[in-house]
């Protein structure tokens, strides 16, 4: 028996996998961590959304997602920023709806696995997140009443709505339900606010509950935007099954990057689990603009005040999820400017990067963590963010690894509006 065969046998016995060229053998520890990063499990449930897993709700939500009538001038849909062909983001440093925004559009890949939403976590459910852009004057700029009128006036929507949620409020009564209207905090003279104030509390509640259902349907659709078949997943399958051919799905460079990712470079500390995120928030010392965006600190305050949070009246589990998730959140540990750890799934397709789109390429991102050039001051609660001092070769290895997380093989029928908002019988 040749020496190489003996080495191969030893590697398999101790659970290590050689690369195709025989150059790379992962330690037991590295292998164990890599195995934790794949496969992607099914999306978790959301007890605050009773229709989260409903196919009919997903179909309705898909139609709403792609419908630009859900905007003030008929020009903006959810898909305007979350463009399927651009990996469900927009390719711009900063988002723009009806006007410009101050943060980068986050991708929707595997979004249902998130714990918090938006860069600052000001939303605690996917359905609640979906509502915010609709009434934001800088994004869709519309109102809950206008949206409900669109749905009521469209026979397809009305049918789908009945099948998923039952009857709509009596929107044909224009005295009770004006064409437009929403609460406008701090602007009581706003036309939307005046119209809203003319309504009875009962009708306001009915309209708001229906508006929450719009978000719940959109969330049911977004739950289906899953990426789970990247070359990296096949590589891990190979590690698990001791299948050298599958392991060789990643070339030597990407495998070296994988080793760095879970080892010396410590990326996995924050980008953990099959979604490559710890689902929480960090001050990664990224250079920030002059706006002084406080991130999570303000997001947490907005979350607590949000009527659509998991403790609110529109959570379908009566606040059960929110009692722990929101009720036990600490107030004093969010130091510095923390932003959500984004997923790395399809990262190679979602440039630019960071909450203000500070970096144009993955190479720039890796170089930043390697050298921390122009970094924000060190944060005492983020002591792990230190220069990695990687070589140029190692930086390229990490980029090659990140590129191996690419899988955009979503069914074509989910990449555009459905033929009808309701499921065919």
């Amino acid at each position: 028996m040749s020496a190489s065969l003996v080495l191969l046998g030893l590697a398999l016995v101790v659970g290590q996998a050689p690369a195709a060229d025989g150059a790379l053998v992962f330690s037991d520890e590295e292998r164990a961590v890599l195995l934790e990063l794949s496969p992607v499990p099914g999306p978790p449930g959301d007890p605050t959304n009773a229709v989260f897993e409903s196919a009919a709700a997903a179909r309705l939500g898909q139609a709403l997602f792609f419908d630009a009538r859900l905007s003030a001038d008929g020009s903006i849909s959810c898909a305007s920023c979350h463009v399927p062909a651009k990996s469900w983001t927009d390719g711009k440093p900063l988002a723009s709806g009806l006007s410009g925004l101050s943060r980068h559009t986050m991708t929707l890949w595997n979004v249902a696995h998130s714990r918090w939403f938006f860069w600052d976590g000001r939303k605690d459910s996917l359905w609640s997140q979906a509502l915010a852009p609709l009434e934001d004057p800088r994004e869709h700029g519309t109102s809950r009443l206008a949206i409900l009128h669109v749905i009521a006036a469209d026979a397809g929507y009305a049918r789908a709505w009945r099948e998923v949620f039952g009857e709509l409020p009596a929107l044909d009564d224009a005295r009770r339900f004006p064409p437009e209207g929403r609460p406008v905090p701090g602007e009581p003279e706003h036309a939307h606010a005046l119209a809203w104030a003319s309504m009875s509390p009962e009708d306001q509640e009915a309209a708001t509950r229906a508006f929450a259902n719009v978000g719940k349907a959109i969330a049911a659709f977004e739950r289906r935007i899953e990426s789970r078949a990247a070359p990296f997943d096949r590589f891990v399958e190979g590690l698990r099954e001791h299948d050298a051919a599958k392991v060789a799905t990643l070339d030597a460079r990407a495998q070296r990057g994988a080793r760095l990712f879970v080892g010396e470079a410590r990326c996995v500390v924050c980008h953990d689990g099959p979604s490559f995120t710890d689902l929480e928030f960090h001050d990664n010392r990224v250079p920030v603009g002059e706006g002084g965006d406080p991130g999570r600190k303000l997001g947490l305050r907005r979350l607590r005040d949000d009527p659509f949070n998991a403790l609110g009246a529109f959570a379908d589990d009566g606040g059960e999820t929110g009692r722990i998730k929101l009720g036990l959140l600490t107030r004093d540990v969010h130091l510095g400017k923390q932003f959500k750890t984004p997923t790395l799934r399809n990262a190679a397709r979602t440039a630019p990067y960071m909450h203000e789109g500070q970096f144009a390429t993955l190479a720039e991102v890796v170089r930043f963590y390697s050298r921390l050039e122009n970094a924000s001051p060190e944060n005492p609660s983020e002591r792990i963010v230190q220069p990695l001092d990687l070589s140029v070769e190692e930086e390229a290895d990490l980029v090659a690894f990140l590129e191996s997380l690419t899988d955009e093989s979503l069914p074509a029928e989910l990449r555009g509006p459905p033929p009808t908002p309701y499921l065919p019988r």
Partner: protein
Amino acid sequence: MRGVPDLAPILIVLVLFGACLGSKSSQEGCACGPERPSGTEKNAPEDHAAAGTGPSTEEPATSEPNDSRSAEAMASSLPDFADPSWTRVTSRAGKYLVCWRSLSGSVPRNQDFELEAWVLKDGAPVRGAELTVSAWMPAHGHGMLRQPQARVNEDGSFRVAGMLLHMRGHWQLFFEVLEGSLSETAECALDL
């Protein structure tokens, strides 16, 4: 202009962290000591169904001070803390033995879990004490993002909800027992 860090909360956290670190003896009292609390020789089957029936409060849970059962009777119904599912931690000054375990059987990373905890003094559950559970990642400089909620059960144990150790790495787990006006902390290490 980039904001100047708000030093007040940083200082508070650092001071609390320093207090948590305490003396070397706290480390020595950590995790699975060989001592067996007195009064645990007779062990009744564990009754998890009774867990979580105590009063709901966001304040640190306080066990009832005037329980009619004798300490001996209570001690006779204690779980078998020698079972490997339990971690036993002596408080820094040696006054208390805190025995805890995850209700799911293991401590997960970045997933919600609940603890069952017993605070023993001289082998019997302490009545009228408050329990506060917290955790810290010394290498990172931060702790949990939640304040877990400890509720006292009728049998004197505590059920701690809202535990979430969100990152891989080394954690310190703190059990602060407040009895009357005096407190002691038991500390345990976890590697996730």
